[in-house]
């Protein structure tokens, strides 16, 4: 294609034990905004990091304007004409706005930085974005939205041909998003190629021309935005093809019966600004409540405020009908709530401790330091959960970091079951583990439900949610948008609610 700006062919990148990208093709044309879509682990970040020279590719070919490029550092990528704005603002908080725009390429005479020229250049760059901002202001004194705009100004200060925006809108409000879109539409009209990574459906449909979908490190396909219905996009992202989607219409809904009785947990108008809009939610003993929504829809945020990691700023919480305030994970555990976090490696496992130690940790913590569980009791607990949860390991003294992801997840589940919780919050328990282990975890969840536990189950795999939940709460763009129960639960029903456009946001985005 003659007007193609960036052509990526057969790009592969692996990490020890993981294949992050497998032979991906990706094309961006001049004057288009191209959405890069995919769920967790799809390979979006890896693709971007290879393009910007943070990672080195294992195989594949990248051409920019027909010339093969091979950036080995962000600086080289920039020199080729690829600029990037990252999701977490990657700027220097302690320097001024102007300096952040020019860092690393300050105008100098004989090695002497010309501050006047820096300020002028920064003003120009900010003016291009129609941003009224004092360039001498310290970056950390600006709001995240402004910082994001500064990052954009920096990206455009070099004569960039390709602009990559990696989830630039995740911390912006609607008006700010509108501003941003005005700018990138202008850039597009100037002939720049723009790669736009986001998980907000509405934004994809309001601003992009084309969509490339990745899944599990592989290319699913490239589609003109106008020709890909929302439902189908969601289907592609979660790994269904069009036929399956059609079949789903008639698919038998969830077989779960609705539980009666008093809820164990009930929250009313519960929310936190910037994380999740106030919502109502209740879970009964012996019930699995699914929390469905795309990445970034507020699933994890909901779990975090229930478990006391973040403080809610509105609403109230009841346990067994009694009003409670939970201010820390310790307080939550005391109330017999358990939480397996989404990022196992960062928030879950203690990597250099043994399986046994990882299993007893939460129970021991709830008993305090002085009432140590005897070694015999520890061994018994470890053996019991290794057996009950079918953890594949040579023995309880293995370091947990040497286990596979699925087995690590089972150990973490064991850690919480040892505390005999009444509510367990599972945030993406099946993420990044193989199919067999997924099925086992799902089976375990059902067993636990039968034992009378209340379970809040978060997953991007809709089939799992449908198969295991009695009720499903649907989140979109950090809001609760619907709730399904019993027979009404089906993948199709959930997807329609996730994909439905929001009326009010549409107006803003197209303004």
């Amino acid at each position, binding site marked *: 294609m003659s007007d193609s700006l960036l052509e990526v062919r057969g790009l592969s990148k692996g990490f020890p034990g993981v294949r992050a990208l497998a032979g991906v093709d990706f094309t961006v044309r001049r004057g288009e905004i191209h959405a890069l879509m995919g769920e967790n682990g799809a390979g979006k970040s890896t693709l971007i990091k290879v393009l910007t020279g943070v990672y080195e590719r294992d195989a594949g070919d990248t051409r920019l304007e027909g010339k093969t490029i091979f950036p080995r550092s962000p*600086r080289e990528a*920039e020199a080729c004409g690829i600029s990037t704005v990252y999701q977490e603002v*990657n*700027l220097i908080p*302690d320097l001024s706005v102007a300096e952040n725009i020019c*860092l*690393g*390429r300050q105008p100098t005479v004989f090695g002497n*930085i010309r501050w006047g020229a820096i300020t002028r250049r920064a003003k120009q760059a900010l003016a291009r974005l129609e941003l009224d901002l004092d360039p001498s202001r310290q970056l950390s*004194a600006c709001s995240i939205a402004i910082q994001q705009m500064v990052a954009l100004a920096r990206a455009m200060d070099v004569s960039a041909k390709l602009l990559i925006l990696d989830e630039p809108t995740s911390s912006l409000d609607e008006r700010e998003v509108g501003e941003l879109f005005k700018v990138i539409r202008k850039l597009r009209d100037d002939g720049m190629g723009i790669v736009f990574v986001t998980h907000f459906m509405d934004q994809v449909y309001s601003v992009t021309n084309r969509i490339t979908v990745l899944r599990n490190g592989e290319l699913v396909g490239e589609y003109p935005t106008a020709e890909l219905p929302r439902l189908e996009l969601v289907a592609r992202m979660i790994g269904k093809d069009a036929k399956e989607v059609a079949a789903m219409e008639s698919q038998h809904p969830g077989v779960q019966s609705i539980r009666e009785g008093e809820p164990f947990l009930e929250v009313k108008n519960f929310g936190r600004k910037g994380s999740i809009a106030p919502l109502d939610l209740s879970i009964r003993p012996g019930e699995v409540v699914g929390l469905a929504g795309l990445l970034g829809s507020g699933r994890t945020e909901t779990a975090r405020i229930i478990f006391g990691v973040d403080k809610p700023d509105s609403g109230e919480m009841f346990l067994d009908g009694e009003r409670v305030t939970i201010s820390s994970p310790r307080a939550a555990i005391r109330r017999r709530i358990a939480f397996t976090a989404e990022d196992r490696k960062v928030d879950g496992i203690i990597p250099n401790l043994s399986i046994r130690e990882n299993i007893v940790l939460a129970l021991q913590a709830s008993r305090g330091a002085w009432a140590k569980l005897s070694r015999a009791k520890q061994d018994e607990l470890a053996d019991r959960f290794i057996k009950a949860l079918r953890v594949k390991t040579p023995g309880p003294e293995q370091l947990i970091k040497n286990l596979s992801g699925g087995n690590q997840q089972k150990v973490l589940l064991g850690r919480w079951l040892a505390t005999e919780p009444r509510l367990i919050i599972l945030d993406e328990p099946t993420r990044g583990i193989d199919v067999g282990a997924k099925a086992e975890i799902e089976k375990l969840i059902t067993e636990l439900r039968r034992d009378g536990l209340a379970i809040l189950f978060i997953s991007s795999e809709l089939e799992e949610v449908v198969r295991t939940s009695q009720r499903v709460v649907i989140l979109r763009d950090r809001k609760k948008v619907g709730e399904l129960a019993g027979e009404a639960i089906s993948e199709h029903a959930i997807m329609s609610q996730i994909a439905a456009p929001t009326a009010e946001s549409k107006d803003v985005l197209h303004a």
Partner: protein
Amino acid sequence: MKRINPKYIPLAATALVMIALYVLGCLLYPNFGSLRVVVNLFGDNAFLGIAAVGGTFVILSGGIDLSVGAVIAFIGILIASLISGGMPPMVAIALALVVGTVFGAAQGSLIRFFDLPPFLVTLGGMFLMRGLAFVVRAESLAIKHRFYQQTIRQLAIPLAPRIAIPFTAICFIAVVIVATYICIYTRFGRNVYSIGSSENSALLMGVPVGSTKIGIYALAGFFSALAGCVSTFYMQSGNPASFVGLELDAIAAVVIGGTLLTGGVGFVPGTLMGVLILGLIQTLITFQGNLNTWWTKIAIGVLLLLFIVLQKSISGARRA
């Protein structure tokens, strides 16, 4: 509406403390305000000041350098031995500066290439330099050379009858000016700030993090070596056992001077004020007569605490 940039608050606090100490001294003791006291403040603290300026770069980048005191002692005895061995002083000084810079670059390379913690690497550097100082010569050695006994004195700038700015003070002031320039007007200087503020961002923004890190420790090594040279001008001798624990005073001066120990925020002139504050405390206690030297350490500790808590509250407020 323009808010005061919070990064200037510690600097303002430093200036206030410095002025308050000086005014206090002037009110308590009639001679305190004399020109001679001020001149001596610069001259007596010159080598500490130069080392602290080097330390400022390291701390700005988020690192730490424990080798300062040992390097000064090593360079001092090295110069003394070389000169007494017949080498011309200028050659000996030039050689010493090269040795210091290379040593600093070596420390930086270990930190850069093997991701070693600066704390341990410079700790090793400290042991090495202290030991090598004794290898060069096990006891102190006076420098008897015309350059030292006459030229250095002639280089002083007379201010008033019988009061002159000593050459050591001139070196100190020159270093402060040059370092301030490097910090503000060179890309290297700005890179130091960016690494200290957010190393990951700096990397993604195309800052040459690796070579800058080596450069920072090389520069710190150079300044430590220069401080060693200045110490020989001041002492007219070299002593392998001297300046034990000077690195602590240097770090304290940097922190009291408003540089964030976590890196990213700080000013060389602040370090100058930090050094002067340490000097003022010392002078006050000397003037007082029956207060003892240990109050210096306690006062420095209290100031450190105040500044660290101040920094913590500012950075905490920023994050919230």
